[in-house]
């Protein structure tokens, strides 16, 4: 069939979300991307794959978001020279993904000014590509030399502050190179990849059933979003239909994850501006919720509850009553705390106009998720493509345009209350019936897409199956890929002591992008 927005033939992909796929010639990639960009399509993800076991060479994959749904483009590349025309000038967010795709599969973006390594540090040499099929996952190379050319800022009074990978707080590892003059940040350059632990390669050693647990550990704070995206991809690829009660429960779980993360981050944001009151109050509420999660679902962070085919825990009538009662209490306390935040002059003074990303830049660079919604990029998969269970409860999108810390706090508060409303609506009308359907057997060459609005932004899982219910290639994509580059921009002109505050207002995942 003809694609709704691009002049190409596409195949609809079976599954919960509207998605299409097409094989295209690498030669037309740039033209297609330019047309897509002109039609305001967003770049979601880019990755490479090895097709040599299936009689081909390599392939470059692109996922673009259109109003009609997700478009998964695959461009076959020759075995001898897997090169393709780079698209980072059209979609700037593609830069790091192109470099990561090269590090792992050796597909090379031509005419790209930046060819520095990204996920590869010293653990494997530059002539080796771990996601190639002839590469054994257990291969061990001695730690090699690890040089990374940072861009150097020069001038009178400019100096550098290198931070990380081991940070001062309890956070994930990454390296930040600040170039500053006085207290002002002139430039920030991030270097990530420290947590690369071979997740994509590990998936290829697993069955579709086994992969669910790993998917839930790609980024621990988004375990529900990833588990759902994984389940959705497997269900699409195998033609499995999860029962509607399971879908409603998944909705509840995803919103509970959003609530827990927002409670924690809103608390930390106050802590970063010396209002420790906010930290203690919100972390009390977060702990209340985590304990409720453990009581109702058997896990504080709701890990391993969403599986392909459905969910492993049901919610009895009295349990949903308890859930609603406790949520109502958290909701009323959070509302009181919000008014305290709003009226606290010192807090607002630190929040407002700090770490600003203006809508124009956000749109150009492809900022996504809650940070995008705070900067005028108003997308939310629950609203853009309302599939069950969201169809029935009509989520409302939280928006802002100022793009500063205060705007991201405002979006978080709005989403916190909206998620509570959604949980209430879903729990009040839980459809009767089963919570799990048997997963149909997969065949080699099946494709599935999982696309879920996690608390941070859209999580994508693109799956291609092999025979015997195994995984040929699975690419999990975290929204942090697109937002990390904007953090570099958000801090410009701000003072160094505001960096933790700005960073926390985005709270991006390292593990999710390092894979």
């Amino acid at each position, binding site marked *: 069939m003809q694609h709704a927005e691009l002049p190409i033939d596409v195949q609809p992909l079976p599954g919960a979300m509207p998605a299409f796929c097409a094989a295209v010639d690498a030669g037309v990639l740039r033209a297609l991307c330019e047309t897509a960009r002109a039609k305001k399509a967003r770049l979601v993800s880019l990755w490479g794959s090895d097709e040599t076991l299936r009689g081909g060479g390599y392939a470059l994959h692109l996922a673009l978001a259109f109003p009609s749904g997700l478009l998964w483009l695959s461009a076959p590349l020759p075995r001898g020279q897997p090169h393709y025309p780079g698209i980072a000038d059209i979609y700037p967010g593609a830069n790091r993904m192109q470099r990561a795709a090269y590090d792992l599969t050796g597909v090379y973006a031509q005419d790209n000014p930046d060819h520095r390594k990204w996920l590869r540090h010293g653990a494997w040499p530059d002539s080796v590509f771990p996601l190639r099929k002839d590469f054994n996952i257990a291969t061990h190379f001695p730690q090699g030399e690890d040089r990374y050319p940072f861009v150097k800022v020069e001038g009178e009074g400019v100096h550098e502050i290198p931070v990380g990978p*081991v940070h001062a707080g309890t956070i994930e590892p990454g390296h930040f190179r600040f170039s500053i003059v006085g207290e002002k940040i002139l430039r920030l350059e991030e270097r990530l990849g420290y947590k690369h632990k071979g997740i994509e390669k590990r998936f290829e050693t697993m069955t579709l059933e086994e992969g669910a647990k790993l998917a839930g550990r790609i980024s621990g704070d988004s375990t529900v979003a990833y588990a759902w995206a994984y389940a959705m991809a497997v269900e699409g690829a195998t033609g499995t239909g999860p029962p509607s009660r399971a879908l409603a429960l998944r909705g509840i779980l995803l919103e509970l994850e959003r609530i827990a993360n927002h409670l924690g981050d809103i608390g930390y944001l106050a802590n970063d501006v010396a209002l420790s009151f906010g930290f203690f109050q919100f972390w009390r509420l977060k702990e209340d919720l985590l304990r409720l999660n453990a009581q109702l679902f058997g896990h504080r962070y709701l890990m391993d509850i969403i599986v392909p085919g459905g969910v492993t825990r049901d919610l009895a009538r009295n349990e949903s009553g308890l859930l609603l009662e406790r949520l109502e209490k958290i909701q009323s306390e959070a509302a009181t705390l919000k008014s305290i935040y709003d009226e606290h002059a010192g807090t607002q003074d630190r929040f407002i106009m700090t770490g600003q990303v203006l809508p124009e830049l956000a749109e150009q660079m492809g900022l996504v998720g809650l940070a995008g919604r705070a900067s005028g990029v108003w997308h939310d998969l629950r609203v853009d493509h309302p599939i069950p269970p969201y169809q029935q409860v009509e989520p409302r999108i939280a928006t802002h345009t100022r793009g500063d810390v205060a705007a991201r706090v405002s979006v978080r508060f709005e989403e916190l209350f909206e998620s509570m409303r959604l949980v209430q609506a879903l729990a009040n009308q839980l459809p009767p019936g089963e919570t799990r359907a048997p997963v149909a057997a997969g065949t080699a060459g099946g494709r599935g897409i999982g696309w879920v609005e996690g608390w941070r932004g859209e999580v994508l899982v693109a799956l291609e199956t092999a025979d015997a219910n195994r995984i040929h290639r699975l690419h999990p994509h975290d929204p942090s890929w697109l937002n990390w580059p904007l953090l570099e921009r958000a801090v410009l002109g701000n003072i160094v002591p505001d960096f933790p505050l700005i960073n926390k207002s985005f709270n991006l995942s390292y593990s999710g992008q390092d894979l």
Partner: protein
Amino acid sequence: MYQLLKQIVTAGIVTEAAPQADESLRNLEQRLSEVILKHFGRALAIRHVDAGSCNGCELEIHACNSPYYNLERLGIKFVASPRHADVLLVTGPVSRNMEVALLRTYEATPDPKLVIAIGDCGCSGGIFGESYASCGRVSNVIPVDVAVPGCPPTPTAIMQGILTAVAARAR
């Protein structure tokens, strides 16, 4: 300001002398204070190192500082530098890309030092295991005194792990 003070008073002190399994943590708290008082002058400094986790264990380490657990009241503080630390709390399978950083952090921590591996991955490599990109368990890279399993371990389990490590040193 009135509203803020009112909220503080109505919320009260939620810190639990004896949470959930009632006696278990109270014992822990008393013993923990006693041991720390004796051997570390009521100040135990912890440096957390994420060596490649999924970030799940970090969530629970944060929770240890939340008002229900309030680790700091026991004299246990998280510090910004390994040079100030008595204990390294290490999470994750150690990614190959963090191997050198973890070793350097360990070397920068003054003796005598304790290492606590947190979570299933820290204990065994977990679901990520050993591979071209992962060294697996923490003890494959640096010596580990105590390993706390769980995915992720609860704040109570993490606090118990700290006690176990400190008590072992006291012996």
